[in-house]
């Protein structure tokens, strides 16, 4: 794994990461891995093909695959391909060469919707939420559709998914991905997420499962999107935190009693993570419980303290995913149940 040249992180960001990762070695591992491109991971679209058949097809191109999570055979990592000896080939080692830029998205199997290119950590929210056949599911911030298509496959195109997106441009990408993956149980809506939830509440439309994969500052995506270093600033973290609290609060009211909601972000900022979790636990004290869940990766418990802020002890049940722990991007997840 070769390090890339990346933009210089802002001093405040460096300082905050140091507060999160207090052990020297851990911090060094973090700064080392964020300079390295993420692995190529794909999720088999089991609505269209079995993992076994897709494996055969992709291996026939000389692609070298790895299966990182044994309980999730539909998830592949494409390590590279067998070297062909071509002139412009980039070798990773003697027996492995890099895929060409864009090669993963240009195969016949991708064009036919047999797989979805999705970063490993981005697959975790749906693993946590575990949507089931015939359930009603709301994906509040759905574009580009990686998690909606994952839910559609898990639900075997039964039940119903409402996939909401506010931006017209992003909605087109969502529609195109849903189509390519053959997701027939989904209705795409276009509305500001908080307003949509209020309207559902007024019309008494309730859901078994809700995903709030909230817009965030993206600190966890530095490996695939180094430009995040340039855009990062504390003000946007603060305003995102407000938006996230409102989104989660309004969405929670759309849950059926016994229904479950996953809140996730691709950032490490505690204001956008534990602070939001703490807020929702306080807001719906006797109606909500935070619940534990299993993930196929190493996670760390949610923080109970950040600077002057103290969070409830139960916030520990949320999960932090750091890039250096699993060779993924960074993520944060929390799961709740409505009990009243």
């Amino acid at each position, binding site marked *: 794994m070769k390090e890339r040249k990346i933009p210089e992180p802002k001093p405040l960001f460096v300082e905050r990461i140091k507060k999160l990762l207090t052990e020297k070695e851990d911090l060094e591992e973090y700064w080392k891995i964020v300079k390295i491109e993420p692995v190529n991971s794909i999720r088999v679209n089991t609505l*269209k093909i079995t993992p076994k*058949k897709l494996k055969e097809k992709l291996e026939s191109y000389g692609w070298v695959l790895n299966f990182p999570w044994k309980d999730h055979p539909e998830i592949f990592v494409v390590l590279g391909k067998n070297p062909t000896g071509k002139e412009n080939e980039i070798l990773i080692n003697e027996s492995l060469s890099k895929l060409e830029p864009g090669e993963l998205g*240009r195969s*016949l199997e991708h*064009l*036919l*919707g047999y797989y979805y290119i999705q970063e490993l950590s981005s697959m975790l929210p749906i693993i946590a939420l575990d949507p089931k056949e*015939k359930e*009603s599911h709301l994906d509040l911030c759905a574009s580009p559709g990686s998690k909606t298509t994952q839910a559609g496959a898990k639900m075997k*195109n*039964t*039940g*119903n*998914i*409402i996939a*909401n997106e506010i931006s017209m441009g992003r*909605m087109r990408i969502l*529609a*195109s991905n*849903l*189509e*390519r993956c*053959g*997701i*027939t*149980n*989904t*209705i*795409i*809506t*276009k*509305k500001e997420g908080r307003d*949509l939830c209020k*309207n*559902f509440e*007024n*019309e008494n*439309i309730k859901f078994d499962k809700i995903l709030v994969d909230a817009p965030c500052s993206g600190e966890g995506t530095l490996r695939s999107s180094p430009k995040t270093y340039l855009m990062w600033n504390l003000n946007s973290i603060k305003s995102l935190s407000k938006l996230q609290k409102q989104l989660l609060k309004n969405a929670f009211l759309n849950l059926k009693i016994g229904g479950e909601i996953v809140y996730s972000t691709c950032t490490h900022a505690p204001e956008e993570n534990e602070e939001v979790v703490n807020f929702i636990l306080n807001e719906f004290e006797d109606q909500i419980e935070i619940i534990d869940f299993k993930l196929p990766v190493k996670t760390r418990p949610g923080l109970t303290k950040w600077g002057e802020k103290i969070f409830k002890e139960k916030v520990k049940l949320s999960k932090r995913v750091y890039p250096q722990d699993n060779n993924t991007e960074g993520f944060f997840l929390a799961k709740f149940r409505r009990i009243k």
Partner: protein
Amino acid sequence: MTTIENIKILKGKERKEILDSIKTQFGIEKFNGTLLQRGKERIFLYEGNFDEEDLKKLEKITFIERAGIYLGKLEDHKMRLSIEGSQILKNEIKKNIVELDDQEKEIWMMGHEILKKTGLNGFIIMKYKEDLLGTGKASEEKITNFIPKSRRLRDRSIEK
């Protein structure tokens, strides 16, 4: 027929027209799911459990961009199935199927017509081994291609 803002739920005679068409063209007997129409000819398939009342209720509170996925286009009372349409109905399609060899599959997926006498006329299902590749239109000497640009294989001969 029921119309929501930009989507029409096909029922009765209109649904029957589509079902009759795919039965005559491709031998499709069994068909589940709700058929919806957007614009004059684009047909969508929705298999979720929202019924007409649910959709109307939803429409009252938000803009519905679409329900389900594009199944195909109705052209002169005949259905031109999309790639997904052909894949979803894979096990029901009984006739007007043209099997492609390896080279033809590449040409087809690059978006080119295929010069081939099939003995068929009109819309045909394109198949390569187990993969369904959408619909073409057969005439005496060729098959016209409808693969959308976003779903085409890269044509390296054009790039050079």
